[in-house]
């Protein structure tokens, strides 16, 4: 049971690093942004995991006599972070589209070659 409780945190670590791998190893700019989104998703998972309380329920007083609630604070932070995340990803995609129009490519090394010319 002890190990089972750590599973959520391990998934966080692995997911974070899968996203990070895409950011550092892949050369395609869209793929880098996808990796960044995965990285972000892992952080979301960590916060929400930490807010969970055994036997708790969602922090809404529904009048059904529930007394144990999960932590509302991480939920508030992540709720706004998700929407901010999509906005910044969209900004990144906008830059990638402009890069494609100017350089004719979205592969990192090809862009660098054009820049060095």
């Amino acid at each position, binding site marked *: 049971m002890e190990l089972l409780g750590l599973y959520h945190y391990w998934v966080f670590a692995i997911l974070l690093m899968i996203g*990070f791998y895409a950011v550092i190893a892949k*050369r*395609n700019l869209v793929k880098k942004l*996808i990796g960044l989104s995965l990285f972000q998703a892992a952080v*979301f998972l960590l916060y929400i995991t930490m*807010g969970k309380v055994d036997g708790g329920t969602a922090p809404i007083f529904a009048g059904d006599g529930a007394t144990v609630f999960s932590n509302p604070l991480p939920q508030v932070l992540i709720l706004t972070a998700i929407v901010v995340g*999509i906005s910044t*990803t969209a900004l990144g995609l906008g830059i990638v589209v402009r890069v494609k129009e100017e350089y004719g490519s979205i592969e990192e090394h090809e862009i660098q070659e054009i820049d060095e010319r």
Partner: protein
Amino acid sequence: MIVIFGIFLLTLLVITAIAIVRTENLFVAVMLMGIASLLLAANFFLLDAADVALTEAAVGAGISTVLFLGALALTSESERSKPTNRLLSFTVVAAAALVLIYATFDKPRFGDPEAPVQTHVAPWYLEKTPEYIDIPNVVTAVLGSFRGYDTLGEVFVVFTAGIGVLFLLGGGKASGVLPEEKVNEGLRHHLIPRVVGRVLIPFILLFGLYVQFHGEYGPGGGFQAGAIIAAAVILFALLEGEKRALSVLPERVLLGLIACGPLLYGAVGVAGILLGGNFLDYSVLSSDPVKGQQLGILIIEAGVGITVTGVLLGIFHAFAARER
């Protein structure tokens, strides 16, 4: 039972993430991202975060996929080059993952009610929300009132990102009227999507409004509602074509919405000062402080919803209107 289900979902999530990174077809990667978001949303739900699950499902699985597809249509659908320094990158990543996993052994047990994160300020919010604000959803209370400054900041980040995308993609080649044959007709000539869409869109809009105004009582609020309403309009644009969607909600109106939200939010804050309270102190908005808090939250949630709808739709149209 729920624990086993959670572990199943998390394992699927890791498998999906590996597939996303491995595939060289970006179209496949984006579709898998949608699936990963849905899995993540289901997980959030199991972890008692109903509000977050709703947001992730609407934003991650819905809008994010559409935006990525829009960007792919303007760039390319597959990666052309192999990863750089694959071995080195993998070593770095694996080492970092091992360090992170080693660190997890010091973390409090999953779900421990005595963990530091549960014993600091969280009980205060749970205890005082009925007294100060008296709405059932504590997440909305913290978001709208106790941490109203944070949310104002987030709204401005969304606002800035929307303006940024419009600056990057709004002008240039996209300006001017598209030639007739290039106008995106959407799926207007396909019967089944059109009929299904027509039935669905009013209900999606209605659900969006419900989520917006019921956010104090159940899971929901401006962020989720904005994403859901934007998704309904995007569905309309996909089915009926860009032009019709823009005749329903012209670009001027969208720009107005983008600016209106932060202004509304800020105006509530300033109204608090003018009525003798602090910035974003809603208690003074009404003779009864608790009623004032509720009124303030209702208005700022509307501001958030307006901004998010406007920004997401503005971004979508900026991508869709760009000439290929």
